[in-house]
């Protein structure tokens, strides 16, 4: 108990100190609160947005886009990564596209994505997918490479075919590294949803941010940003929890 007391006090204290200084600067008129807003104003704005039902509607839109974009990236990424890890030539053939996706500013393509998929949820989902899929593929591929070759040869000796080898041995054995990729992918999918909504959205929390910014509503912008930050932290926490759960059935055979 005592060991954890000081870090929490220092870490929490620093955040509280920042908030108090910000609030004081705004309340005492040291800064123009129209431009800099203040913690109290932001809390009020979140309350207003929540009561009007707008916040919930926006969160709903963004959640659907996130779930679709990330879900597709998880399925496609794990499948591609499995094949790339198992078959060298698949890896060689797809490698150029993986680094292209990784280095290219995907958001730049939003006009084309809007044209192909349609404004709003479809285009934003596509952006989230393209951002999220890279770490999923890379980690899944690495995970397959790292599977203990003894496991594979044991399964082959017992007559496992290629399909059952992939599904029953390689996939389960790769779960821990894959989960790390999925967690990174989830973070990037959230970035994709928010940024995608800036440019190609017709609703959602990122759309709100850019809408309020267009109307110079600093307080409302920051309120929506706070919601995004909280959502990011909650998602990361959930992903970490899932990562631990996914690995909990594993027993250490060497002991």
């Amino acid at each position, binding site marked *: 108990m005592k060991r954890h007391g*000081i*870090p929490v006090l*220092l*870490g*929490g*204290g*620093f*955040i509280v100190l*920042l908030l108090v200084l910000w609030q004081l600067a705004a309340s005492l008129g040291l800064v123009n609160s129209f*431009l*800099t807003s203040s913690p109290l104003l932001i809390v009020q704005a979140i309350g207003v947005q929540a009561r009007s039902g707008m916040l919930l509607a926006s969160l709903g839109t963004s959640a659907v886009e996130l779930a679709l974009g990330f879900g597709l990236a998880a399925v496609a990424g794990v499948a591609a990564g499995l094949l790339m890890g198992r078959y*060298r*030539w698949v890896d*060689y*053939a*797809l*490698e*150029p*596209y993986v*680094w*292209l996706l990784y*280095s*290219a*500013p995907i*958001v*730049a*393509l*939003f*006009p*084309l994505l809007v*044209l*192909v998929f349609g404004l709003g949820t479809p285009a934003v989902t596509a952006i989230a997918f393209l951002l999220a899929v890279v770490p999923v593929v890379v980690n899944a591929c690495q995970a397959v*490479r790292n599977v203990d*070759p003894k496991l594979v040869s044991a399964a082959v000796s017992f007559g496992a075919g290629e399909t059952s080898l992939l599904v029953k041995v390689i996939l389960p054995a790769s779960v821990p590294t894959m989960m790390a990729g999925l967690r990174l992918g989830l*973070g990037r999918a*959230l*970035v994709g949803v*928010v*940024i995608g909504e*800036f*440019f190609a959205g017709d609703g959602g929390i*990122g759309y709100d*941010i*850019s809408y*309020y*910014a267009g109307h*110079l509503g*600093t307080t409302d*912008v*920051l309120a929506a*940003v706070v919601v*995004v*930050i909280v959502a*990011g*932290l909650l998602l*990361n926490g959930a992903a970490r929890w899932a990562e631990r759960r996914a690995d909990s059935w594993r027993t250490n055979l060497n002991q």
Partner: protein
Amino acid sequence: MTPLAPAVGARSRAFTGPGPRVWTGVLSVLVVLVAWQVAGTTGLVDQRYFGTPVAVLRAGGTLVSSGELWGAAQVSLVEFAGGLLLAIVVGVPLGMLMGWRLRLRQTLEPTLLALYLTPSLALLPVLVLALGIGVTSKLAIVFVEAVITIVVNTMAGIRETDSRLVLAARSFGASQTAIFRTVLLPSALPTIVAGLRLGAGRGVIAVIVGEIYAGSGGIGQLISSYGQSFDTGPLLFITLVVAVFGYLVGLGLRVVQSAVTR
């Protein structure tokens, strides 16, 4: 699959030219390019919207020869380099101090981690509101995107230093400064450079997104104006140039990283 495999592959490549990896990759890209070109010229997909590789190249030639690309690139490069430099100057010392001093780390880590785990690009509209649509807001977004990664990695690098080395140095009477310079810094350097690489990658994307969002020049604004008129050729060419630039920056820092790793 065995640990020996890469070494063997590297040797055979040295003697016989590019190996299967390069050939398969090149072939795969060629197949897609040819299919795209054929689909475009036969009208299978709408050329106006999807372009063709030839059209993209032609648009690229015009962009380069007219000097339009280089003019815009200069603006973006200044914003990128300035923001990154600022992030290094602030991030590396801060990360070192946080790795070294327990109380400082405990104070700043929750805030840093919150920023690290959330999409900090969401702050872009806030920065534009506060700093305007000029160079300053782009410098700021590159700084924010890069500095968080740099601090986190620098801190990790210092903390991963083998504590027995520090202890040994201390037993032999090394001063704090000497320990820092001769033990902590060399051991942390690879991780620090890895942080710079990740930060630079995020910075490239940040400057482009920032310019698309509220540009007063630069590559992002070029993208934005060609995108709004659905002029696919230049749009795809510029996107490709940015991708290659980001790749090369990453590659360069990877080389530095392996040079400082012993």
